[in-house]
């Protein structure tokens, strides 16, 4: 086994073990930390596959953004050491069986399918990604890029509206009425 292969299997073990602990850990804060390790492992996998830009995006958006947001909301809504309420045993067993059958079925399908490997050189450099993002012709992603930016703006406004305290709006309206 070459070092390249060994690194892949170490990363795969990290991702799967941390992911499993993240969904089974009884303490919510710990499961957020295990989620952090899973996401870092996935970022390592992107580095292993030579797509540095995606790895950087993964680290800055997931590890730096979403996990921090999740940890903040855990602190806002729970006591840090509190244990999560468990699902009924029947549901746990059913979910475990569904997971097991899903993994086995997926394994059988994947191991039978012949993946035809290509020998063309793969160049995911940042300049090529940037050119494709601004290209509106064939093979360009200009329109989805704009659509996604509108989606982000809508999500931003929606978050503020949903999370705003209902009192704030009425207070401002009252001030205007008093004027």
């Amino acid at each position, binding site marked *: 086994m070459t070092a*390249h292969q060994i690194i892949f299997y170490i990363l795969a073990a990290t991702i799967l073990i941390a992911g499993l602990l993240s969904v089974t850990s009884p303490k*919510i804060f710990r499961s*957020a930390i295990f989620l952090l390790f899973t996401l870092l492992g996935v970022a390592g*996998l992107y580095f292993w596959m030579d797509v540095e830009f995606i790895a950087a995006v993964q680290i800055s958006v997931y590890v730096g953004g979403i996990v921090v*947001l999740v940890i903040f909301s855990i602190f806002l*809504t729970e006591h840090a050491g509190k244990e999560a309420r468990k699902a009924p045993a029947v549901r746990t067993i059913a979910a475990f069986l569904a997971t097991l059958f899903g993994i086995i079925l997926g394994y059988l399908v994947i191991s039978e399918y012949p993946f035809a490997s290509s020998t063309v050189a793969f160049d995911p450099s940042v300049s090529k990604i940037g050119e494709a993002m601004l290209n509106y012709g064939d093979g360009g992603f200009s329109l989805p890029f704009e659509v*996604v930016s509108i989606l*982000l703006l809508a999500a*931003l406004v929606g978050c503020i509206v949903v999370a705003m305290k209902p009192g704030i709006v009425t207070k401002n309206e009252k001030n205007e009425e008093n004027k």
Partner: protein
Amino acid sequence: MVPVTHIVFLSTALFFIGMYGFLTRKNLITMLMAIELMLNSVNINFVAFNKYLFPGHLDGIFFTIFVIVIAAAEAAVAIAIIINLYRSHKTIDVDAASELKH
């Protein structure tokens, strides 16, 4: 060289781990974390297929970028809803949010 099969199997296992978490958890934040795991497994598939099967294009890379962006927007909206739910119910248990149930 690691065969593509192993990478795809890794992402399948990660997807079903996320599904297990989504089915067994009762807390809304941990369910959101399980969804993040599932989205990540999809991203691994996109990048692996792009790199090993269709290296001439960058479509998989772009789908990964858009999935990451949409996951970030989804997490932000979900956490806003969770905090709003906590404010009105003093809990973030899924069973507490039953107003829309028939």
